[in-house]
């Protein structure tokens, strides 16, 4: 069951580029990355594309397919009609290196700025004990494969390059939430989340949750709880008073 599909692929580099149209064979069961590879093998040998596992686990083949941030390896061709033109472009939020490959180093710079996991001292027997229920919330965020599709779709930096200096993006806001919720961690990152990582820039429009290939509930389980924790610290006089008169344990 093969057919010829029309593909529009963005080709170029930082100096410029455009969408080029190709007709390429598609076989049953294939994904967009398979078709891009066939294109590379048969028509445009110098087409640049980043990929690794082809299983939705390495987060390398992030791109925009028909305008939507997706992993190319997890987008089945069967979701498109045979007469539908499939448009593949690089992620818009990051500087382009060439063709479908972007420079995502912004993300690694932000990652390096986050105060690292700092566990409390070990117990007398040398162990770190915690219950599964305590660490479950943090574990959801550990599913992140760092494909940076959430960063790509977030309008705070997608539409406003200047905000990159003050906003860490959803991937790193959930990293902050993960550490802040961790039962063993002792560092308070709430003020930094607001002041240095731009939590207030997020207007919870949930695009990050919509595009996450791992199905992480970034907004509901990470960013909103983190916003509420910041409210506890900065905008809630009752909670502040409670902590001052020690009726409320700093949990």
């Amino acid at each position, binding site marked *: 069951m093969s057919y010829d599909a029309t593909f529009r692929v*963005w080709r*170029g580099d*930082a100096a*410029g580029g*455009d*969408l080029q149209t190709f007709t390429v064979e598609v076989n049953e069961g294939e994904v967009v990355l398979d078709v891009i590879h066939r294109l590379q093998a048969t028509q445009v040998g110098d087409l640049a594309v980043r990929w690794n596992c082809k299983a939705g686990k390495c987060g390398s083949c992030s791109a*925009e397919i*028909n*305008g*939507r*941030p997706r992993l190319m390896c997890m987008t089945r061709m069967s979701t498109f009609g045979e007469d539908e033109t499939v*448009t593949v*472009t690089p992620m*818009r*939020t*990051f*500087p*382009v290196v060439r063709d479908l490959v*972007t420079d995502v180093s912004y993300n*690694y*710079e932000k*990652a*390096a*700025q*986050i105060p*690292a*996991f700092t566990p409390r001292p070990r117990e007398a027997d040398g162990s770190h004990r*915690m219950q599964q*229920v*305590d660490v479950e919330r943090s574990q959801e965020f550990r599913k992140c494969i*760092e494909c940076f599709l959430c960063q*790509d*779709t977030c*309008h*705070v930096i*997608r*539409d*406003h*390059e*200047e*905000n990159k200096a003050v906003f860490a993006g959803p991937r*790193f806001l959930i990293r902050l939430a993960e550490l802040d919720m*961790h*039962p063993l961690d002792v560092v308070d990152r709430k003020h930094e989340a607001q002041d240095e990582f*731009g939590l*207030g*820039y*997020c*207007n*919870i*429009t949930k*695009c990050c949750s919509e*595009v996450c290939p791992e199905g992480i509930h970034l907004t*509901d389980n990470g960013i*909103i*709880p983190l916003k*509420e924790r910041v*409210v506890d610290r900065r*905008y809630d006089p009752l909670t502040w008073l409670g902590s001052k008169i020690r009726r409320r344990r700093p*949990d």
Partner: protein
Amino acid sequence: MTATAPRRTGAVTPGRGTTETPPRRAAIAARTLRTDRWWLQPLVTVVVLVLFIAYSTVRAFQNAHYFSEPYISPFYSPCITTDCEGDTFPELFTGPSWISPAIYILVIPLGFRLTCYYYRKAYYRSFWQSPPACAVAEPHRRYTGETRLPLLGQNLHRYFFYAGLVFNVILTYDAVLAFRDETGAWGHMGLGTLVLLANAALLWLYSVSCHSCRHIVGGRLNSFSRHPLRYRFWTVVSRLNAHHMKFAWVSLFGVAFADFYVLLLATDTISDLRFF
């Protein structure tokens, strides 16, 4: 790498700051390359919310047809001035007769919904187009989000949540009072009683499923195992929270319908279907 890199000591080059010209993005002129009807959802949101705002504004300023024994419209409850029709709530003061009693109280439910995490998404996307849909460019030149006034005020959500709970108690009390008949004798039930009960139930579901509620009952804890009861609460609220958007819409329609039903009764357009 992100797990353990000490602060600013990772094997990654430090940020470029803002002095250097950023490297170029791919040159794509189109605002979006999405081929689906991404504009439909914000459009529907605008239409429905504008209809609700128009209806509720007219009704709030109308200052009439909000009480039909034993039912009171949720837009006018608690009715706290001496001008109020009916006697469902203590009359606290005498306001100017040209000010509708609804005006004194609607700030609470309005504030609760305006600062709600779900409605924020809905109106930022649809009214403010920030962004109109995922991966569709917004039309604004600058964006500061909720970092400054007035949007910094969204952080007051939990106080509107607390006040909203008081309103829920009052509206539930109204629904209980609707088990009395026109003469004040208990043992009555009409379709209006069901409408007020359903309205109160939906408002409870909307309030309890709120993100602030989820945080307050247990989300703020880091050690659930030391607080098993709060963990149970948090688990239940989390389950409800997954449906917060649904409850937000259904309870909005519920309030409007309850008010409309009372309007129809008060203007003698229909008569109440009486069960007993």
